[in-house]
């Protein structure tokens, strides 16, 4: 009896805790996996949407380009219209900026604030960005505007999913 390293009580404690834990895990695991499913789903990004803007029509002045596509939101498919501010920089390279303010997600407008001409201006908290989308220090945004990757399709501008940039 003295050689017994595990008492009957300990043995029962361990096995009951083990079985109980197994049962609890068996109940919780499906529910947790169910809840976190959206986090683990890979987003098939990279679909380009052709806009009605000809690349040859773009100038140095940012213009507002609206483009519409079918968006799949779980069991809903709906038509969504997104906006980009598009212009050509000095090298003739197309720049397409997302209008969504990097502060709290309001919508910025080009050249709208009379006190700050030639800037992207957010009316919510006065966020400012220069023409290339760089946030002006001292205003709320902490990052430059997102950039749409673009392609040329039959002379027309096609835009992908806006991506964040590194801090300028």
């Amino acid at each position, binding site marked *: 009896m003295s050689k017994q390293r595990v008492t009957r009580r300990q043995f029962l404690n361990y096995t009951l805790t083990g079985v109980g834990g197994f049962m609890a895990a068996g109940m919780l695991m499906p529910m947790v996996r169910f*809840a*976190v499913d*959206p*986090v683990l789903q890979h*987003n098939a990004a990279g679909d380009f949407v052709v806009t009605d803007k000809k690349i040859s029509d773009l100038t140095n002045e940012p213009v507002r380009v609206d483009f519409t596509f079918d*968006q799949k*939101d*779980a*069991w*809903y498919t709906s038509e969504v219209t997104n906006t980009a501010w598009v212009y050509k920089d000095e090298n003739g390279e197309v720049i397409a900026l997302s209008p969504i303010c990097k502060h*709290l*997600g309001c919508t910025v407008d080009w050249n709208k604030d009379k006190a700050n001409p030639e800037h992207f201006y957010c009316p919510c908290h006065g966020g400012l960005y220069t023409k290339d989308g760089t946030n002006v220090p001292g205003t709320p945004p902490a990052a430059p505007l997102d950039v749409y990757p673009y392609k040329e399709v039959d002379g027309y501008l096609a835009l992908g*999913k806006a991506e964040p940039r590194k801090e300028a």
Partner: protein
Amino acid sequence: MLNKIYDWVDERLDITPLWRDIADHEVPEHVNPAHHFSAFVYCFGGLTFFVTVIQILSGMFLTMYYVPDIKNAWESIYYLQNEVAFGQIVRGMHHWGASLVIVMMFLHTLRVFFQGAYKKPRELNWIVGVLIFFVMLALGLTGYLLPWDMKALFATKVTITIIESVPFIGEYLKILLAGHSDIVGAQTITRFFAIHVFFLPAALFALMAAHFMMIRKQGISGPL
């Protein structure tokens, strides 16, 4: 008649000590506004609970008409408010009560803070109270989306942007809450509904039970 039913049950199950233990206790003089009118400050906790009960009841009834769905949420609220008898009252109770809970809870917190009632041995109850405060804020936040109007949508977009800014896990937290990496939509409203109606109230009940049991165990703090 009622007395006879009570006696019949009590004889078999001895239920008197159960409710005595909950209800039958003295209110100390220094917290009784009938003795010192300034003791009304002790009412705020009870008022918070009272408004919370209204919130739970009115919320239960609202779900008889409400649908957590991007196509029908707004329509169902429009219907229950304008077509259903007393719809405006019931939704009004839930709408205004939501703000009132925050006000009452804040006043209760101020009272506890300025009287130093959070000090030993009641530190744990202060902590539980702060957790209740967070749960209440989360209830307000998740409930705000449910009408699915412009204000609700954009307030939630702002909220989700704030959550996204959490270091390292922000992106995952955002998707966990919104149900999609870049859409605030069908999955967001169902998630917020589930959180608002099941998860948070469950947490709230547990925390409130702990809050009240600690008050009964420790008693109310003494006069200043």
